[in-house]
């Protein structure tokens, strides 16, 4: 029953977001600004799902997920920088920041990024490989819990400092900006932005479907078992480290794909996106939306960012207090996040309007189900 409702809701929202909204935009009812803004939120939602897959389903709280998101963004950014061609300030064939660092020719590692398929491959490969190596070392050493969180945070901070260096030839503090073309399409045109928005919507839908499928399989059951009691999983003969490694790499790739679509829509990618607070923000979105639900992170990412966009304009002096207050409220009163609240309300309504109270409360855990005397309501009908 609940599964069906969720699938129906997801299908309706997906059609609304991927088909109806762009149509409304094309006919001028929804502004280009809104489409562009929601495109950004959807790419944040992809990042949030990747956090949920790790944290909500495997119990691995990564505080460095934005590293993979930003790396994906950088790989796409390198392609976009190459596509500027000689339209930059200096009208030279190499990116502007290299010119004012005194370069006349393109550094070797920049050369293949003129090819879109190569850039796309790197979007997946580089973050994937980094996650594989880091995850392999971390999980083999049985680094868990808070130590894992601290390590991921250190990793992203280290990468942030590295990318700040101009020596890396990745644009230093300024990063990449002033993009012009994507696949020969002018990025300034509303039609291009609309296509990017739709692509992000589709990516989000596919990500959701993949994660939903994954968590339903036997793999997903092991995943949750690791979250709930890793030692028991180990004693049952499962190589928990391998499962965790797979989830870590998969979530890194998901985040990177989100980042790759984020860059052309926002128009800038720079190392401050790797700063530790950005990854913390992503965790907050998941907590606000409801972790371990897959729908929750999407709701959380869109809700928090919409609120932020609105409050930084309407209450530029108080928006931090507004957002902070909301986080406190969620932590204190909504431990299951917005989605948890909705499903609780749903359960409450179902109980209220059902004449025969045989449907178990949605809040109940399987353990409570198996108790001999479950509900007072059943005892006195």
């Amino acid at each position, binding site marked *: 029953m609940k599964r069906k409702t969720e699938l129906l809701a997801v299908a309706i929202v997906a059609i609304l977001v991927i088909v109806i909204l762009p149509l409304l935009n094309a006919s001028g009812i929804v*502004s*280009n*600004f*809104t489409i*562009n*803004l929601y495109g*950004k939120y959807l790419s944040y939602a992809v990042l949030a799902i990747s956090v949920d897959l790790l944290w909500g389903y495997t119990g691995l709280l990564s505080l460095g997920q934005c590293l993979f998101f930003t790396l994906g963004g950088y790989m796409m950014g390198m392609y976009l920088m190459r596509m500027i061609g000689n339209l930059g*300030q200096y009208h030279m064939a190499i990116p*502007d*920041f290299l010119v*004012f*660092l*005194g*370069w*006349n020719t393109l550094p070797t590692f920049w050369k293949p990024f003129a090819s879109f398929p190569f850039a796309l491959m790197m979007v997946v490969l580089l973050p994937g490989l980094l996650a594989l190596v880091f995850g392999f070392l971390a999980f083999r050493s049985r680094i868990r819990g808070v130590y894992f969180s601290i390590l991921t945070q250190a990793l992203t901070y280290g990468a942030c*400092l590295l990318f*700040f*260096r*101009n*020596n890396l030839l990745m644009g*230093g*503090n*300024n*990063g990449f*900006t*002033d*993009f012009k073309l994507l696949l020969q399409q002018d990025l*300034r045109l509303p039609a291009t932005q609309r296509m990017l928005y739709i692509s992000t919507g589709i990516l989000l839908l596919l990500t959701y479907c993949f994660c939903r499928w994954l968590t339903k399989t036997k793999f997903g059951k092991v995943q949750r078992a690791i979250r709930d009691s890793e030692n028991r999983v180990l004693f049952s003969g499962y190589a928990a480290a391998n499962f965790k490694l797979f989830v870590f790499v998969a979530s890194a790739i998901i985040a990177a794909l989100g980042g790759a679509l984020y860059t052309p829509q*926002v*128009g*800038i990618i*720079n190392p*401050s*996106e790797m700063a530790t*607070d950005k990854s*913390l*923000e992503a965790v*907050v979105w998941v907590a606000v939306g409801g972790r371990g639900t897959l729908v929750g992170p999407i709701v959380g990412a869109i*809700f928090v960012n*919409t*609120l*932020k*966009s*609105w*409050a*930084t*304009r*309407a*209450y*530029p*002096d*108080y*928006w*931090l*207090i*507004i957002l*902070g*207050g*909301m*986080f406190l409220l969620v932590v204190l009163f909504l431990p299951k996040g917005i989605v948890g609240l909705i499903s609780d309300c749903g359960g409450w309504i179902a109980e209220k309007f059902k004449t025969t109270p045989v449907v178990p409360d949605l809040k109940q855990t399987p353990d409570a189900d198996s108790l001999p005397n479950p509900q007072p309501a059943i005892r006195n009908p």
Partner: protein
Amino acid sequence: MFFKTQKLNQVASLGRAISTTTLMKKFIRSFSAVTLAAFTLNAAPVLHAEDTVKVGILHSLSGTMAISETSLRDILLYTFDEINKSGGVMGKKIEPVIVDGASNWPLFAEKAKQLLEEDKVACVFGCWTSVSRKSVLPVFEKDNGLLFYPVQYEGEELSKNIFYTAEAVNQQATPAVDYLLAQGKKKFYLIGTDYVYPQTTNLILFKYLQLHGVPVENIGGGLRKDDSGKVISAGKYTPFGHTDYQQIVSDIKEFAASGDACVINTINGDSNVPFFKEIAAAGLTPASCPVVSFSLAEDELRALPTKDLVGELGCWTYFMSLKSPENKSFLAKWNDWLKTENYPGVVKEKRAVDSPMVLSYDGVYLWKKAVEKAGSFDVDKVRTALESGEINFAGPGGKTTMQANHHTVKNVYIGSTLANGQFKILKTFPEVKGEPFLLKGLDEQLEKKTAAN
């Protein structure tokens, strides 16, 4: 846990600035509004009053840059009030639209889009860091907006939609070097934070110094060359927030042993504290080896231990200590405004005024004059007026004239730091023409020079 300490500081200073009761009221009001807003986002109707013109303020009011940028928000609000009191711009009162860029560069781009596409502002005053300007530049070009940028920067950029009231490198760094050369300095040590402004400025200075007869071995801090042996980076660089300057300062001490050396400092922010502490500890004095800093103005000096900095040099197009009648009346009016204004979040006590603030102030008046000359708020017409070379304003720092190259002509001042965080003015370079593209011209001049030898 989810906020950086700076944000907490910001909240704390906000709390000091306004009484608790107003804060609570506003807070409760905000909260009830939040629930409503969640449903009506981006759909709020835009009211177009006949007698007002919307102008955007795009600065960071939270995050790492808030400490610098809130001052610019304050001075802009003051300027708008002053203009509104004297009749507005072409009879229309300025209605500020304040947004918070939150030291978050993608958010800057988003807010710029919002100001131009949703609020449809006539003009935007904003940005501090180069990266924030780079992030909004494509937005302003796409939507044909107008941005006034007030903070000293590295140049090498010229957008038809941005007017730079900021100091270009030849209005700060090269005059400072001229001054030091005239003082008989022969050796120059370049040090900065590793980002685009110090890198570019030092590369320009590296060439400029050679052109003025300083041999390469007298330029300290190290060089980096590309495969062909061409110098692509000059000077010593430390990352943001660096604190350990012991080794670097001992290098400087060795470099300055001959007694005719000086240091060109483009270190940003808090790192200046340990840097100047080490300089003082090493026994380097302004007399033996002066340090000229390009990122430290009166507003920053409020937060630094000035005792380590007394006698060190600064170079800006405005100093608060200028004795001109324009500056005196400006400061008097600004202080009066601070006493009476009731904008939320404006700190009233111990305020300093510095170059970025005055350049913001100048920018508003240049825009006003251009609008009046064009007889329209239309961006293309205002741009044409600004590019005519006839728009000028006698501001607190002296006369400022906008040139066709979107940079200004203005006076440049060299000052030495006093214990109270002010500057004693040592020299004035009158009417220096701002020029954004210096690297190429310097390269050509250097080639000519080597060919002549």
